[in-house]
C-alpha cells in the first residue's frame, strides 16, 4: 500500500480532538439547564433471550406516556422517556441507570430490569436518591426485606409470594376434589424457579396436607431439549405436575411433552402458561392446562381491560405481556401521584405514591393500590384458570382472594424475619 498523505497527526488536529473530547464530556450539563420537559429514564433488556419482554415493557410505557402527555404531562411538564438497553447484565444496568440520572438528567427511573439487574438499579437509587419504580422484578425480598427498603423505591410488579399463595390454594382445591396426591415438579434451575416452586409446594401442602412430591426435575434455564425431563416425569407416574417454566422454555417443553402425550396422563399446573408470549407460540396448545394469569385481556373480564389489550394490539400488532401491564401501571401511578401532589418533583411524588389507590384495568376490583408499608403493588388481578387451544385461550379465571393473600403474606414475612 502506498500512502498518499503525509503520515502523522498535526498539532492542530490533536488540539481539536482534545477539544472535541472535552466537549463530549461537558455538554450533557448544558442540556440539563433547560428542564421544561421531565425526563424519565428506563433501563431495560432490549437484546438477548428476553428482549421480547423488554420491548413489550417499552411499548406499554410509551402507550401510557402518550396518554399522560396528551392530558398535560406530569404537573404541566411533558414526559420524555429515555430508554436504554442493559443487555440483562447487572453492571450495565447500574451503569445505564447512573448515566440516565447523572448525564441525561432523568429525574425519575422506571427500572424495567429482571432479577439481579433490578437489585443493581436499586443500589443506584439508594445512592442517588432518585425516585425509582421497579416494574419487572417479582422477587419478593426486593420490597419485603426491610434491609432493602429505601423511601424512594417502589414496585409495580406482581410478587412471587402472592403467586404462590394463590397458586397453592387453587391447586389444593383441585387436588382435594380430584384426589391428586402424587405430584411432580419441573422448574428452571435458578433462583426464581427454585424459590417459586418451593413456596408453591409449601402452600399446596398447607391447604392439602396429604399431597406428596414424588419427582423433581430442574432443567437448565434456556435448555433446548427436554426429552429426559419428560421421560423422567412419565416414569414417575405422578397424578399432577407443577412447572414454573416460562417463555421459550415453556413452549419448547410443551411441544416436546406433547409428543409423549404427557398432558393426557396428568393434571398440569403451569403458572406462566397464560401469557400471550407462550399461548400464541405453542404449536398445539393442550386443553385443560391450569395456569396463573400473567396478562390476558379476558381477565379481569372488564371492558377497560379488553380495551387496553386491544389498543396495545392495534398499536404494536401483538398482544401485551406480563411485563406490559406492570410497566403501564407504573406510568398510571406516576401520573396520578403527580396530580395528587401537584408537582413533578420526585420526593413529592414519592410521598403521594405511598398508599395511593388508583383505578386500573388490571385491578382485581378495578383498582390497584401502592401499599404504603412496603411500597409494593397490591390488589392487582391474580387468579388461575384452564386453557383452551384457541382465543380467548383461558376463558374462565378463578380469582384469588386478596384477604387470604394478605394474611398468609404477613405470616410468610414473619417466618422470614422481615417483620
Amino acid at each position, binding site marked *: 500500500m502506498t500512502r498518499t498523505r503525509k*503520515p*502523522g497527526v498535526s498539532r492542530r488536529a490533536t488540539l481539536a480532538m482534545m477539544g472535541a473530547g*472535552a466537549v463530549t*464530556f*461537558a455538554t*450533557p*450539563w448544558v442540556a440539563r439547564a433547560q428542564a421544561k420537559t421531565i425526563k424519565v429514564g428506563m433501563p431495560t433488556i*432490549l*437484546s438477548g433471550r428476553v*428482549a421480547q419482554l423488554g420491548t413489550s415493557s417499552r411499548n406499554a410505557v410509551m402507550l401510557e406516556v402518550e396518554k399522560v402527555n396528551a392530558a398535560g404531562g406530569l404537573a404541566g411538564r411533558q414526559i420524555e422517556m429515555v430508554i*436504554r*438497553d442493559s*443487555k440483562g*447484565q*447487572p*453492571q*450495565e444496568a*447500574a*451503569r*445505564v441507570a*447512573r*448515566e440516565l440520572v*447523572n*448525564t441525561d438528567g432523568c429525574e425519575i427511573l422506571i427500572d424495567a430490569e429482571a*432479577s*439481579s439487574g433490578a*437489585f*443493581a438499579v*436499586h*443500589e*443506584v437509587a*439508594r*445512592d442517588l436518591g432518585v425516585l425509582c419504580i421497579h416494574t419487572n422484578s417479582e*422477587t419478593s*425480598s426486593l420490597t419485603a*426485606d426491610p*434491609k*432493602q427498603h429505601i423511601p424512594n423505591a417502589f414496585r409495580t410488579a406482581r410478587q412471587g409470594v402472592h403467586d404462590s399463595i394463590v397458586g397453592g390454594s387453587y391447586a389444593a382445591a383441585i387436588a382435594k376434589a380430584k384426589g391428586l396426591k402424587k405430584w411432580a415438579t419441573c422448574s428452571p434451575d*435458578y*433462583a*426464581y424457579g*427454585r424459590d417459586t416452586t418451593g413456596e408453591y409446594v409449601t402452600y399446596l401442602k398447607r391447604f392439602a396436607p396429604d399431597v406428596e412430591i414424588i419427582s423433581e426435575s430442574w432443567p437448565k434455564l434456556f435448555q433446548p431439549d427436554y426429552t429426559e425431563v419428560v421421560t423422567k416425569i412419565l416414569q414417575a407416574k405422578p397424578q399432577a405436575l407443577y412447572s414454573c417454566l416460562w417463555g421459550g422454555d415453556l413452549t419448547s417443553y410443551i411441544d416436546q411433552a406433547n409428543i409423549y402425550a404427557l398432558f393426557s396422563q396428568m393434571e398440569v399446573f403451569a403458572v406462566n402458561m397464560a401469557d400471550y408470549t407462550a399461548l400464541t407460540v405453542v404449536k398445539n396448545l393442550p386443553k385443560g392446562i391450569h395456569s396463573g394469569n400473567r396478562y390476558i385481556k379476558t381477565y379481569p373480564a372488564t371492558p377497560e381491560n379488553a380495551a387496553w389489550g386491544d389498543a396495545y394490539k392495534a398499536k404494536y400488532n401483538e398482544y401485551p405481556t406480563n411485563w406490559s401491564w406492570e410497566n403501564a401501571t407504573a406510568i398510571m401511578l406516576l401520573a396520578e401521584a403527580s396530580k395528587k401532589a401537584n408537582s413533578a418533583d420526585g420526593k413529592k411524588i414519592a410521598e403521594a405514591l405511598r398508599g395511593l389507590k388508583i383505578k386500573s384495568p388490571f385491578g382485581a376490583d378495578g383498582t390497584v393500590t401502592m401499599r404504603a408499608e412496603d411500597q409494593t403493588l397490591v390488589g392487582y388481578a391474580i387468579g388461575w384458570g384452564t386453557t383452551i387451544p384457541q382465543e380467548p385461550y383461558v376463558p374462565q379465571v378463578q380469582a384469588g382472594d386478596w384477604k387470604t393473600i394478605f394474611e398468609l403474606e404477613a405470616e410468610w414475612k414473619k417466618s422470614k424475619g422481615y417483620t
Partner: protein
Amino acid sequence: MSELQADQGAQALDVPQPHAKTRRNRDVLIALAAFVVLALLPMVFSSKFLLDFVIRCAAYGLFATSLNLLVGYTGLTSFGHGMFFGLGAYGFGLMMQKTGVSVPVAFVATLAITFVTALVIGAICVRLKEIYFAFVTLAFQMLIHSTILSWVSLTGGDQGLRGGIPRPPFWGIDLSNHLHLYVTSCALLVIGLFLMHQIAQSPFGYTLRMIRDNATRASFIGIDVWRAKLTIFVLAALFASTGGVIMALFVSGAYPEFAYWTISGEGIFINMLGGVTTFLGPMVGTVLLLILNDTVTRLTEYHGLVLGIVILFFAIGLRKGLMDFVIEWYAQRRDARGK
C-alpha cells in the same frame, strides 16, 4: 500465530536497559504524574459521567492488563481469568456485608482468598499448554460461577449480593462519597499498573517472555517453567481481583455475571482491541471498548452487530491491536526519517 509470536519475540527481547534503578524512578514519576492528572480531572470537568467512566476503566483496565501478563507476556491464553474478577467482587462484598471489618482489611483478605484460590487452580492449570490450558481455566471459571449460583445462602444465587456494600470511612476516606471512590479507584489503577509494569520489566518478566517463545529452551537453561508460570498466574489473579473489588464498589453489589465466561471474553476482546505486544495496549483497549459500548448502546440496541464489526475490523483488517498498530506505524515513520 507462530509468525506473530516470532515477531513479538523479536521486539520484546530488546536488551533490557542497564540502569534498572533510573528506569524505575522514571516509572514512579510517570505513575505519580498520571495519578495527579486523574485526580485533578473532576476539578476541570464536573461531569459525573466522566468519573463513572474512569472508575469502570480502572476496574476493567486492571483486569485486562493482568490478563495480558498471561496472554501477551507468558503465552498463556486464559479463558477463565474472569473468575478472579468475580472472586474479588464477591470476596470483598461478602467480607464487608458479613464481617463488618474495615475496608483495607477486607481488601487484603480478598487478595489473600484470591491468592490461595489462584494457587490451587493455577497449580493444576499451568501444566497444560495452549488449548488445554484455555479450556481447563474456562472449566474452573464455570465451576466458580456455578458455585456462586447454587450457594444461595451465602452468595444470594443469581440475584447477587443484595442490600448494598457497607463502606465505613477509613483513614479519612469515605468510599460512599463518589469523589473519594473515584480517587481511590484511580490510585488502585495507577499502583496496579505500576506494579505490573515492574513485573513485566523485571528479569522475571523477561523469563516469562522466554517461556512464551520457547519453553523447552528455558527449562534447559535451568528455569523452573512450572513455577514461573504459576507465579505469574497467581500475580495476574491478584490484579484481576483488585479490578473486581473496584467493580463491586461501583455497583455496590456483586453479581454472578462478574464470574461468568463473558467477562473473560470481554478481557480477551479488550486485549485484541488494544494489542498484546505493548504494556499499555490493554489499557487503551479498555478505554476503546468502554467508549464504544457506552456510545453504541446509547444509539441502538443492535450494539452486538456494531461491536462485531469492530472486532472483525481489528482481527481481519488491522490484524493487530490498536497500540501494536500505532507503535509499528511510529517505528516505520522513525525509520523513514532516519533514512
